[in-house]
């Protein structure tokens, strides 16, 4: 029999550090495993440090979808002026000035998804926006500090005007997080169970409540963007104004539609389980269709921006590379929206299939 070499537990500062670094969903089991294998502080530290990248990478894979991270990146790229043409005499190109805070915000969002605990979707989206804003500001503060210490040259930070444009990213990030963020609280989320019939009404009411909250958040976010955009259009009358005004009109029309019809309709009074299931299915499909359409609306201005800043400007300046990047970005953005809609549609179809079981019960 092997002698028990374990003299004591791991040093508290080390286990405290690992407690901080291990993603919450893995924390309990992994800390226990590391403690069970404890032989010496060096062995413990070495094993913990070597384990961490696997845990973080695996958690990132589970909590972040490529489509959603891609859409968040597009929002940041558009709102931080990464695709803007460079002005004459500009110290650093726009893609560097905007790319650094955009990359910082994307990394912060992925890390937040790894470490976040269970949150309501709307709160989750709000915190996403706050974390992204903080990461962007922090990246600028670091660059300013480096410039003050003469470690980098001038012009690496965002021009002042882009801070206002960057603000537009926040409502979009909020809604992406609120609508598409993955549920990180339950490792068994993929298990398919059929809720008991008596729970169906309760379940629908929770769904109705979630839709109501999300719809309210989306109205606020879209309203905020519309008000800011209209203010900018009236104040500055930019060259894109002829295209922007119809967008604004569409935004306002959509706001009216969301306010009037965006909610999940209540269950018909005194309905039995089968009409409730049918009503639930119809509403799931309707909300999914509405959601799919809304992403095209949200990202519509970005398509226009990519065409104007990359393709049209590339044609005017005879820059084939810029045109090619613009075309690739358009395809990528469309692809990401399609993938996000497909992934959500798949989850909705599973839910609809589970609800169809009520029809079978009724038929049997």
């Amino acid at each position, binding site marked *: 029999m092997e002698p028990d070499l374990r003299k004591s537990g791991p040093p508290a500062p080390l286990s405290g550090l690992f407690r901080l670094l291990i993603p919450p969903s893995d924390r309990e*089991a992994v800390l226990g495993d590391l403690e069970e294998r404890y032989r010496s502080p060096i062995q413990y530290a070495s094993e913990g440090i070597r384990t961490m990248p696997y845990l973080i990478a695996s958690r990132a*894979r589970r909590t972040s979808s490529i489509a959603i991270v891609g859409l968040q990146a597009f929002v940041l790229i558009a709102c931080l002026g990464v695709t803007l043409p460079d002005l004459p005499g500009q110290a650093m190109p726009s893609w560097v000035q905007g790319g650094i805070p955009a990359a910082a915000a994307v990394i912060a969002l992925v890390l937040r998804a790894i470490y976040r605990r269970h949150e309501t979707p709307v709160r989750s989206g709000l915190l996403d926006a706050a974390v992204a804003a903080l990461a962007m500001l922090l990246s600028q503060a670091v660059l300013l500090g480096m410039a003050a210490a003469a470690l980098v040259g001038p012009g690496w930070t965002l021009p002042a005007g882009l801070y206002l444009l960057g603000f537009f990213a926040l409502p979009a990030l909020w809604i992406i997080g609120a609508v598409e963020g993955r549920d990180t609280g339950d490792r068994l989320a993929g298990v398919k169970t059929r809720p008991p019939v008596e729970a169906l009404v309760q379940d629908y009411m929770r769904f109705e409540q979630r839709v109501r909250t999300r719809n309210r958040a989306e109205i606020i976010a879209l309203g905020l963007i519309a008000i800011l955009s209209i203010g900018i259009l009236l104040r500055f009358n930019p060259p894109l104004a002829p295209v922007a005004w119809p967008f604004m009109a569409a935004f306002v029309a959509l706001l009216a539609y969301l306010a009037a019809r965006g909610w999940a309709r209540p269950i018909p009074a005194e309905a039995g389980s089968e009409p409730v299931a049918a009503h639930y299915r119809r509403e799931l499909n309707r909300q999914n269709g509405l959601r799919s359409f809304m992403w095209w609306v949200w990202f519509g201005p970005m398509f226009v921006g990519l065409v104007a800043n990359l393709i049209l400007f590339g044609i005017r300046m005879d820059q084939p590379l810029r045109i090619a990047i613009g075309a690739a970005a358009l395809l990528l953005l469309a692809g990401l929206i399609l993938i996000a809609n497909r992934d959500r549609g798949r989850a909705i179809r599973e839910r609809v299939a589970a609800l169809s079981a009520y029809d079978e019960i009724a038929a049997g």
Partner: protein
Amino acid sequence: MASPSLGQFEQLVLAAILALGENAYGVTIHAEVEALSAPRKAALGAVYATLDRLEDKGLVSSWLSDPTPERGGRAKRYYRLEEAGLQALREAARTARRICDAVERRLGEKTWNLT
């Protein structure tokens, strides 16, 4: 329906869970994987990442036990094979058997003694 294709390390982890029965959790699975893949070492983190992947594929399921005193009062995450995992492991083992047979036919049974 065909089982999802498995990498070699995934096969090792599934085989370890099968071998351990009701005592399959991080530490024991890692030890069993190292025994199966000897003389190669396996990183503990790689085992966790693979378990996550297998769980996402629906091949294994997991649950947290009650806290145990020898682990600083922390719970263990136990794993068990799902039917799809067992099926995938059977298919992988059949393929491995066919490879062994092909090697033996060409090089003879004594080839396993040459290391």
